[in-house]
């Protein structure tokens, strides 16, 4: 709709013009038809008056047979604009005895267009009046009235009304446009201020506006600006408080981890000494259990400490030449014993082979791969675990590295697929009980990969295994 795209100003102008024009047109039609009715009666009255005035004269002239005087009278009467023709018809055969025709009638065409004449419904009028004196018919007076004068008058009135109406309409639209234009001009101030506010100029305020309606909007806008500033200050304060709390938490975790690790190292050291002191078989079993628990606790403490460091933004990455093939092979080798124990097949592929030398943090990449590969081994009871690394040139200085670690393990339900990356979260509570772990490994791995500028995602089907994808864009060491 074109109307829907028009500005408010033009909508008001257009609607006003349409309403005023409609009312004016309706009024014009009413006036014209009222005038038609009145004029038609006057037209008829004029014809009757002419006949009434003419009849006595005709009676006198026709009784004495003075047709010349009758002709002169006819010639005089036909000069009237409203009379087209006047004639005397024979009483015997109805033929024209004398007549006078308006000489201008042939060229005196009605100025209005034909449709207007038709619309008014005004027709030429013919009056017939027998001239009877003392019972003797001397003929019939035939008077033909032309509607030209009447219709011309109506047409002139209509044109005048339309012209005046058009001028008034234009005036109304122009004046309304000026008034509304000036009245709505402050809206531009509101718009500009809103844009500046949106661009971050929180001190932006609309200056005082005279138009009451827009002054209300301006006040509301300024109030909104004040609210935004106040709420933003509140948010900054809340953010700072949250950050302080987070720092306190990280410090607490770090301190606690350190404080716990110290006695834990004592427990582990003493356990190793006891194991080396030839305990009984039963004592040996107990000590192995203590050692295993201590190892697990240490790993959990390490993860918590690690996550705390990453979460508080204290993760720094090295950028050194790394051999990704070597890192991958070491990870696979690390879990080779366990895979053999579980009869799991392993497969490792590189493309291209060898991979290009890349710049990165070998320790952190190894940590991520160890975590993902370790999970695969942990959650897979049979089948295969594969590690595939593919590197493609991406621009003159970088390579796009895609690392896929796939297993045929328990798999993850689709609704849990994303939450496994949340800290302290596993696919479900039973996993923690069944497989152990603090649920921080994947969260740490994703944060590391994201810090490297990459993505860590997973796809899985429950009971069919999972595949974890690492996408990285890494600088390539250009060979000399």
């Amino acid at each position, binding site marked *: 709709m074109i109307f829907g795209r028009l500005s408010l100003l033009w909508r008001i102008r257009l609607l006003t013009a349409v309403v005023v024009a409609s009312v004016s047109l309706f009024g014009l039609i009413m006036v014209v038809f009222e005038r038609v009715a009145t004029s038609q009666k006057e037209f008829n009255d004029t014809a009757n008056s002419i006949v009434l005035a003419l009849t006595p004269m005709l009676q006198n002239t026709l009784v004495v047979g003075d047709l010349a005087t009758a002709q002169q009278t006819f010639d005089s009467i036909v000069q009237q604009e409203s009379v087209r023709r006047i004639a005397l018809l024979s009483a015997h055969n109805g033929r024209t005895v004398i007549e006078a025709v308006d000489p201008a009638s042939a060229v005196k065409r009605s100025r209005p267009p034909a449709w207007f004449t038709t619309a008014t419904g005004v027709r030429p009028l013919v009056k017939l009046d027998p001239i009877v004196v003392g*019972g003797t018919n001397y003929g019939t007076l035939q008077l033909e009235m032309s509607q030209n004068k009447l219709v011309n008058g109506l047409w002139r009135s209509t044109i005048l009304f339309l012209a005046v109406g058009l001028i008034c309409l234009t005036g109304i639209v122009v004046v309304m446009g000026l008034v509304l234009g000036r009245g709505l001009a402050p809206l531009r101030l509101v718009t500009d201020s809103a844009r500046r506010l949106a661009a971050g100029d929180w001190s932006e305020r609309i200056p005082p506006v005279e138009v009451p309606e827009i002054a209300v909007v301006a006040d509301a806008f300024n109030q909104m600006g004040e609210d935004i500033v106040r709420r933003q200050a509140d948010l900054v304060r809340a953010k700072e408080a949250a950050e302080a709390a987070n720092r306190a938490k990280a410090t607490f975790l770090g301190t606690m981890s350190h404080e716990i690790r110290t006695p834990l190292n004592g427990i582990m050291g003493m356990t190793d000494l006891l194991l080396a002191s030839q305990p009984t078989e039963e004592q040996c079993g107990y000590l192995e259990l203590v050692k295993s628990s201590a190892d697990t606790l240490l790993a959990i403490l390490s993860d918590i400490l690690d996550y705390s460091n990453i979460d508080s933004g204290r993760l720094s990455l090295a950028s050194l030449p790394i051999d990704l093939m070597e890192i991958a092979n070491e990870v696979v080798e690390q879990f080779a014993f366990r895979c053999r124990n579980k009869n799991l097949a392993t497969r490792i592929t590189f493309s291209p082979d060898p991979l290009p030398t890349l710049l990165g943090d070998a320790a952190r990449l190894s940590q991520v791969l160890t975590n993902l590969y370790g999970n695969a081994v942990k959650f897979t009871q049979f089948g295969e675990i594969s590690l595939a690394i593919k590197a493609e040139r991406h621009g003159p200085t970088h390579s796009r590295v895609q690392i896929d670690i796939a297993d045929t393990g328990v798999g993850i339900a689709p609704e849990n697929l994303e939450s496994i990356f949340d800290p302290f979260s596993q696919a479900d509570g039973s996993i923690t009980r069944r497989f152990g772990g603090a649920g921080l490994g994947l969260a740490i791995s994703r944060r590391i990969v994201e810090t490297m500028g990459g993505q860590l995602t997973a796809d899985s089907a429950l009971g069919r295994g999972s595949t974890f994808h690492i996408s990285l864009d890494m600088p390539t060491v250009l060979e000399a």
Partner: protein
Amino acid sequence: MRALLVGVALLFGAMSFASAQERVLSFGVLNQQSPAKTAELWNPILHYLSDVTGLRFQLKMGATVQDTDAMMGRGEFDLLYTNHCFQKKYDGTYKVIARWAGPPIYGVIAVNADSPIKELKALSGKRVAFPSTGAFVAYAVPMAALRAAQVKVEPVYAGNQEGALAQLKARQVDAAAVNSRFLTRYAAKQRLRYREVFTSEAFADLPVVIHPRIPTAEADAIRNALLSMKHDPRATTMLERNSFSGFDAASDSDYDNARKIYAKIHE
């Protein structure tokens, strides 16, 4: 042969009848009032005559008295209602067959009732309205009296008697010369209060005269129709509407006094 002669005679008779049927007799009327009013009065009379005689009549008159007199002089009328035919230059052609019924008429010079003019001599130098120089009772008769009394007036010709009295009523003139019958009728209708400063001898009302070219049988039929009108039920409505009594018998000699007046006036 005999049958043929009878047939031819019948054919000619029929043609003659048809010719008479198609012939229209022109009936002239003196301009005593407007042509329209004249026609209002006389056309019904002519329709009546047509009904009774089987002849056809057409009212004919000039626009003025002079025109009508001129038409009379040219013999354009078969019948005529006038007394101008008794003027010397026209006298002898048309013959009287009847006259307007009723008492005789008088020529009158009337003034407004409150006028200081009491007698004919007081009209000297005054404005006196006449219908026209063609009027008999309303012009020739009073003018003859004025001349006899050696009174010279300023004549004002009003066209007809109605006009003359209208001017008197409007006090545009000091006196008006009209016939007594018209004066009575006008005064009653227009509430004119008047006084007569001159009244003439009695004159027979205007006659209907006929041209000698009209066959005697037709002339007799017309005379009989005119005279029987006052007793004919078919004419009753017409007579009542126009307030006249029909026609009375009259002869040429009834208008000798008119001839004398004309002779005086044209001296």
